[in-house]
């Protein structure tokens, strides 16, 4: 049997659980597809790799994708990947030192907040939270700190607050629980159920081999079903521990995202409003034109 090879760029985070589930459960093989994942540790190389033809599909946060689209790159959504929850706990959290008196965006004015990078979804949600809680985001200094170093930096007083994503939130609470606390839920407080990340492919590829991506979508979505059916089941955590290398005891404390199958113009439009508000201005094409049929569910 001749399998079609697809190379997919992923990040070792909770959001890609369905992809790994679909691989492990043989859903891709059943569709005649062999998936070769390439784990990179930031979206920074995933999307360029897609443009350069290294990957057929890339998992990336929505902000980065839309920034590429703004610059004229033909990314098309082929599947949804993750969304924030409607109510806490979120997959993101704003954290501060206990007893520092910092409770809101207002308190952070003139202070330093850490984000893993600027101009991505984590930062955007963080800034939205700052504004929502009464702060002027222009007056808050963003410092780039890699996720793994955030908890130490915060506990050491080198930054005043940090926007973390899971599983680093759980990690920070586990190791620095006595000194650090969560002060905000950036998604559910500013845009409940807001979009987080998607799978994209290049328009030309989709035009040429749309049928392959149909099969890809079907298999991936069976993976989504598999995961959604086991949100409280330890086997899901074992799966995640396997590909992310995060110790399973830590994963038990982690808040999981919602795993959607599709992408809606509405969620993208909402995000675009927010992006433009926070400085990522420019002209973006109509979001509905960006959604491939496999994501239109």
């Amino acid at each position, binding site marked *: 049997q001749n399998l079609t090879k697809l190379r997919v760029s992923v990040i070792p985070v909770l959001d890609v659980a369905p992809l790994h589930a679909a691989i492990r459960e043989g859903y891709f093989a059943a569709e005649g597809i062999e998936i070769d994942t390439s784990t990179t*540790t930031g979206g920074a190389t995933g999307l*360029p*790799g897609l443009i350069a033809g290294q990957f057929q599909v890339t998992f990336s946060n929505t902000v980065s994708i839309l920034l590429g689209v703004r610059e004229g790159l033909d990314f098309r959504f082929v599947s949804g990947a993750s969304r924030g929850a409607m109510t806490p706990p979120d997959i993101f959290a704003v954290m501060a030192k206990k007893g520092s008196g910092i409770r809101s965006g207002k308190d952070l004015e003139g202070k330093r907040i850490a984000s893993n990078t600027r101009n991505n979804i984590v930062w955007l949600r963080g800034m939205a939270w700052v504004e929502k809680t009464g702060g002027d985001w222009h007056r808050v200094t963003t410092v780039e700190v890699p996720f793994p170093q955030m908890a130490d930096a915060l506990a050491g007083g080198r930054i005043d607050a940090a926007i973390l994503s899971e599983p680093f939130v759980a990690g920070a609470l586990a190791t620095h629980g006595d000194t650090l606390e969560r002060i905000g839920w950036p998604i559910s407080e500013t845009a409940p159920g807001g979009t987080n990340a998607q799978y994209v492919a290049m328009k030309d590829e989709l035009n040429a081999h749309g049928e392959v991506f149909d099969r890809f979508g079907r298999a991936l979505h069976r993976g989504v079903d598999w995961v959604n059916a086991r949100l409280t089941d330890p086997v899901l955590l074992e799966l995640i521990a396997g590909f992310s290398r995060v110790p399973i005891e830590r994963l038990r404390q982690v808040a999981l995202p919602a795993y959607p199958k599709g992408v809606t113009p509405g969620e993208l439009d909402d995000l675009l409003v927010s992006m433009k508000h926070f400085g990522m201005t420019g002209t973006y094409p109509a979001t509905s034109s960006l959604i491939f049929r496999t994501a239109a569910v």
Partner: protein
Amino acid sequence: MRLSARPSSGVVLVACLLLLWEVSARLDWMHTPNWPPLTDVLVALAHDTLTGELPLLVGGTLWRMAAGLAAGGAAGVVVGMLFATLPMTARLFGPMVELVRPIPIPAVIPPLVLFLGLDNTMKVTVVALTVFFPVLTNTMQGVAAVEADTLAMGRTFGIGPLRRALRITLPAVLPYILAGFRVSLALALVVAVVAEMIAGEQGIGHYLVMMQFAGRAPEIYATVLVLAVLGYGLNRAFLVMEHRTIHWWFAMGRQADG
């Protein structure tokens, strides 16, 4: 430099520092789980070595490093000989080389990813690019240092230009070339790891970043240990190889540098 067999004061110092590491971590002086005791690090190291994961990753990294070293080194020698023997080529292409030389490798990786992707091609290229410049410089320096008398000697016996280049210039320049390689060796390892850290699911660099993401401090420091030992061993092995290849150079009393 020779590591003495007897436990010198230096070995004692290293041991003391390692002990300080262990104690400071056990007593949690740093108040963080990201400063694991040495023993935990060694356990993690042993575990991932026994599962075969680390050896495989290290092998991959070394392979890429070696390929880059070979490609970049060969290019450096050829271009260096060309630049040194045909001054016009140096004048034509020298400025281009000089403009590319100072660009820090981490800065080249993003655009290179665009052209070469994330896999071996890109990483080997990045390593080759790093190796190219020191070898080039040293080769040119070496060719310039070949005594005019030595070449004239070849001419007086009626030996043609190609044979002179192969039998006189090349062996005479070899010590310089090898010195360039030795400088490059350390850089090549660093750059291979950095490239793996930035892009692609490969090698020890990727393992390092994965473990950083997963918050596994012992594995992180295990990687640092592996790299230290690897670098040390590579340098050592190269020295031995160098002494074999150009024994005459050392016998003539020239000091090994670095």
